[in-house]
């Protein structure tokens, strides 16, 4: 059970804690700064925070309990002289970190190893708790990477990293847009995964191409790592063979569009999503905010709205803004409208923690 969460917002990093009286905002760091994501490394209790200072660029900070300290930022190596590489808009592609979009810890047997995904698509690895970072060249130099495209952002973004709990050399990453990629040798070589997904927004010959898929979020079941869940631009997909093949789940009310997904830590069949009207609007259907949950591997879904606004709600919940704790009972999510809700009964009911936070980018349990 986690009694602490870190809420990354446009104007600071808020600490939200639970005591006898319920959940409350009890602290803020980086007040006024744009905090895009955090990681709490459960192997050693260290916290990491990604900041986007706009004009001054992206930064990373680390805290082991005695305050935050700026550490190395994942930085791209020099672009080779004479290399002409353009983005999908025909402009020269800058080899420069625009956003930190994924932060994950390595396996239990490799303390200090961290993975970081970025826009414009580079994956970085640290072996020393973020003191230094190295671009994973095998993926960046892969010919397939050149076909990645921007989704919601101008440039491709690597937003999901799943480290196999059985073997940390096996890692899956997901890209918007570029589909799912897999390594079984700690990043030395990569192969595309994700057959069975479907993209509506590309020409017909690309609709089923794994590289054309706009995965919004990829998660792996900790208790059954063969099971993977995807919230995709076009809907919800599930895999039972480590992401080789996916099955589309249809007929889910009120919508199959959304950004985040989380899976129960001990039940691979139970997962949660936050639906919205598809890309042209990106708001809750009918102004009613709900979370959808399946308990049977996707055969059926429930829309959970008890405690959530059922009228005039225009909240968007980004891919990192839905969280589940290690118990599997507590969930929390935050929205672009600055609303933060928590549930202690797997989503059956929700309590509002605050209606007045800045726009929320990410929510993570930290205890």
């Amino acid at each position: 059970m986690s009694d602490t969460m870190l809420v990354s917002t446009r104007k600071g990093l808020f600490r939200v804690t639970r005591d006898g009286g319920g959940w409350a905002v009890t602290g803020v760091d980086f007040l006024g700064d744009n905090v895009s994501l955090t990681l709490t490394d459960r192997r050693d209790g260290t916290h990491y925070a990604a900041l986007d200072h706009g004009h001054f660029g992206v930064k990373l900070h680390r805290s082991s309990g005695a305050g935050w300290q700026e550490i190395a930022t994942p930085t791209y190596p020099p672009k080779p002289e004479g290399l002409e590489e353009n983005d999908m808009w025909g402009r020269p592609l800058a080899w420069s970190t625009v956003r930190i979009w994924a932060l994950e810890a390595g396996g239990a047997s490799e303390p200090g190893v961290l993975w970081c995904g970025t826009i414009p698509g580079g994956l970085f690895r640290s072996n020393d708790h973020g003191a230094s970072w190295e671009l994973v060249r095998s993926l960046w130099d892969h010919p397939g990477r050149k076909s990645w495209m921007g989704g919601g952002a101008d440039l491709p973004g690597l937003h999901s990293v799943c480290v196999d709990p059985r073997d940390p050399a096996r890692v899956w990453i997901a890209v918007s847009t570029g589909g799912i990629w897999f390594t079984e040798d700690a990043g030395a070589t990569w192969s595309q995964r994700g057959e069975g997904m479907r993209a509506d927004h590309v020409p017909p010959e690309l609709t089923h191409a794994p590289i054309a898929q706009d995965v919004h979020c990829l998660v792996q079941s900790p208790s059954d790592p063969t099971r993977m869940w995807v919230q995709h631009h076009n809907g919800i997909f599930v895999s039972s063979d480590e992401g080789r093949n996916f099955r589309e789940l249809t007929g889910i009310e009120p919508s199959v569009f959304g950004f985040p997904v989380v899976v129960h830590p001990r039940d691979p069949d139970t997962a949660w999503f936050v639906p919205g009207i598809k890309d042209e609007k990106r708001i809750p259907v009918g102004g009613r905010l709900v979370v959808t949950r399946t308990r049977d591997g996707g055969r059926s879904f429930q829309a959970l709205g008890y405690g959530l606004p059922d009228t005039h709600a225009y909240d968007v919940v980004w891919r990192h803004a839905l969280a589940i704790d290690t118990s599997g009972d507590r969930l929390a999510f935050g929205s672009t409208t600055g609303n933060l809700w928590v549930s202690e009964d797997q989503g059956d009911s929700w309590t509002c923690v605050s209606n007045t936070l800045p726009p929320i980018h990410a929510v993570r349990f930290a205890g």
Partner: protein
Amino acid sequence: MPIVTFTANIQRHVACPDMEVAGITVRQALEEVFAANPRARGYVLDDQGALRRHMIVFLGGEVIRDRIGLSDRVDPADTIHVFQALSGG
């Protein structure tokens, strides 16, 4: 000798006191500053060593021309002002 001076806004994140330098180009001048203050580099330059998109450098009251190579020549009497755009919300 030229002096490099930084916007007040950057000081909130990383202290950048005025510094006398010997360089004869903007690149050389800034490299002297970053040698003494390595953290400041990433706030001013991007991963490829070019000026960040919304950073701006004035030299003798003029905006520098070479934002990538930073090859504009510096006179001993110059002050190099490192500023940033004021946009944001």
